[in-house]
């Protein structure tokens, strides 16, 4: 559903979120609501992991299949979900945690960008640029939610 140019808020300033960012925001908030409703009594750590997964999921879903990194993330999230349901083991998907040994900077980058391993140098640079853009936007979004949800949460 494309958002119209008509802004319901009588705010003269440029809204911080454009239409596509708004979509990511709503996806993320919807995921947060789900986390809140389905496991209200879980531990902070478990909930935090679910929120982290929701963050990477909403990022990847909004980017869609057009990018290698989003495809890799979506695959990873689904794969981990299936494993979790079978094994009952909980893992934070989307955040690779491996000790770094002596690797070339490009290989190091390949491990950090989802879908990066085996990617040629040119594609790696392009994917990294897009990934960084989306990831930093996600961080800004989460910061906004924290800022708006903090003092007035009732």
């Amino acid at each position, binding site marked *: 559903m494309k958002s119209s140019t008509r802004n319901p808020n009588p705010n003269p300033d440029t809204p911080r979120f454009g239409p596509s960012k708004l979509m990511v925001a709503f996806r993320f908030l919807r995921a947060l609501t789900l986390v809140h409703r389905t496991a209200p009594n879980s531990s902070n750590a478990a909930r935090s992991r679910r929120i982290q997964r929701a963050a990477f999921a909403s990022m990847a879903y909004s980017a869609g299949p057009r990018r290698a990194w989003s495809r890799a993330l979506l695959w990873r999230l689904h794969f981990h979900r299936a494993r979790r349901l079978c094994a009952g083991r909980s893992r934070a998907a989307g955040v690779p945690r491996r000790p770094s040994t002596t690797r070339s900077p490009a290989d*190091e980058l390949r491990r950090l960008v989802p879908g990066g391993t085996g990617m040629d140098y040119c594609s790696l*640079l392009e994917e990294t640029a897009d990934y*960084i853009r989306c990831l930093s936007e996600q961080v800004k979004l989460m910061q906004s939610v924290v800022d*708006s949800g903090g003092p007035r949460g009732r």
Partner: protein
Amino acid sequence: MSNRRSRVSEEEINRLVSKLQSLLPETRQRGAGRASAAKLLKETCNYIRSLNRDVDDLSDRLSAIMATMDSSSAEAEMVRSLLRS
């Protein structure tokens, strides 16, 4: 369109490297310098790692906020203030 599997022009690589550098926050751009691609890649890696840490930290904070929320009207409030910002 150029075939990526064949020889990629150095120009193309330089263009992509500059684009990447422009996406790094300013403090990291200075550290990367203009000439060294290896330094830029290292700074990019560090930036991604710090973004991942931010997501981790913000998830913890959101989880703590959620623990204090006891009604769905709080969520509506979050959406409203998000739209206002």
